[in-house]
């Protein structure tokens, strides 16, 4: 196991590389999901401020 983490003496180069790329993946997933969640919240707020126009029959759409 220690051999694995030592990476044949290259540990100081290999592990930061893996850490940065995995962090890039995790951050991108988080950012994408957050942007969609925010867009949905913003859309709900906009719609609440702009209720649908009543239809010709006088009923709410």
């Amino acid at each position, binding site marked *: 196991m220690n051999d694995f983490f030592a990476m*044949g003496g290259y540990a100081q180069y290999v592990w*930061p590389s893996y850490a940065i790329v995995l962090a890039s993946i995790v951050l991108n997933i988080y950012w994408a999901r957050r942007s969609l969640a925010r867009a949905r919240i913003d*859309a709900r707020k906009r719609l609440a401020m702009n209720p649908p126009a009543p239809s010709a029959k006088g009923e709410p759409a």
Partner: protein
Amino acid sequence: MAWTWFHRLGSPPYVYGLAARLTPWFAWPAAALIAYALYAGLVVAPADYQQGEGYRIIFLHAPSAWMSVMVYTTMAVAAAVGLIWRIKVAHAAAASCAAIGATFTFATLFTGSMWGKPMWGTYWAWDPRVTSELLLLFLYLGYMALRSAFDDVQRADRASAVLAVVGVVNVPIIHYSVIWWNSLHQAPSVMKLGKPTMPPEMYIPMLAMFLGFTLLFGALLLTRLRAEVLNRERTATWIRDVVGT
């Protein structure tokens, strides 16, 4: 008519629904492929006869580099479609690419630097490949800065699309830099025609990571695209159905 699919892809409600349905089909295979490739690349693949265990950076460096140029190309094509046919959804797709591409371009430069220190003897060299990849990072950052300089989304779309399309000349420069100029960087070992220059125990995890990253980009793009479409459609009536009120 054969072109109806193209017209439907210009329709925001259709694209929003399609993106929502497609996302899991990209996300789960991406997760499986990346998990497999991490294990196969770190544990199963043998050490390199010259670089020992240090070469294992390649399993992330090369796929990240592929992402950086593939995402840019997607962004430039989407921007061009948006400019030529004035399709809002295409501009929304282009805008969705930039942050993803910038992250993986940074990851490419970082992993390259980590690999360069033991193998080239330096973290950084003004080498043609490294310099053109750095230019790619500046193109992404410039694109995002340009977009944020406009309050009006349509003007931001048009201006940033021109930058994206012009900047695409850098993509072949990155790819051929190692062939055109004397470079410290090795020549392509995956993105080339003919037989791979690696044994299958290295090549297969590499291909899995390439495919996994590409599918991951698909899932990220589809999710961000939905956000962009919602933001652009303001108070269109179909939005009420998809966000729930």
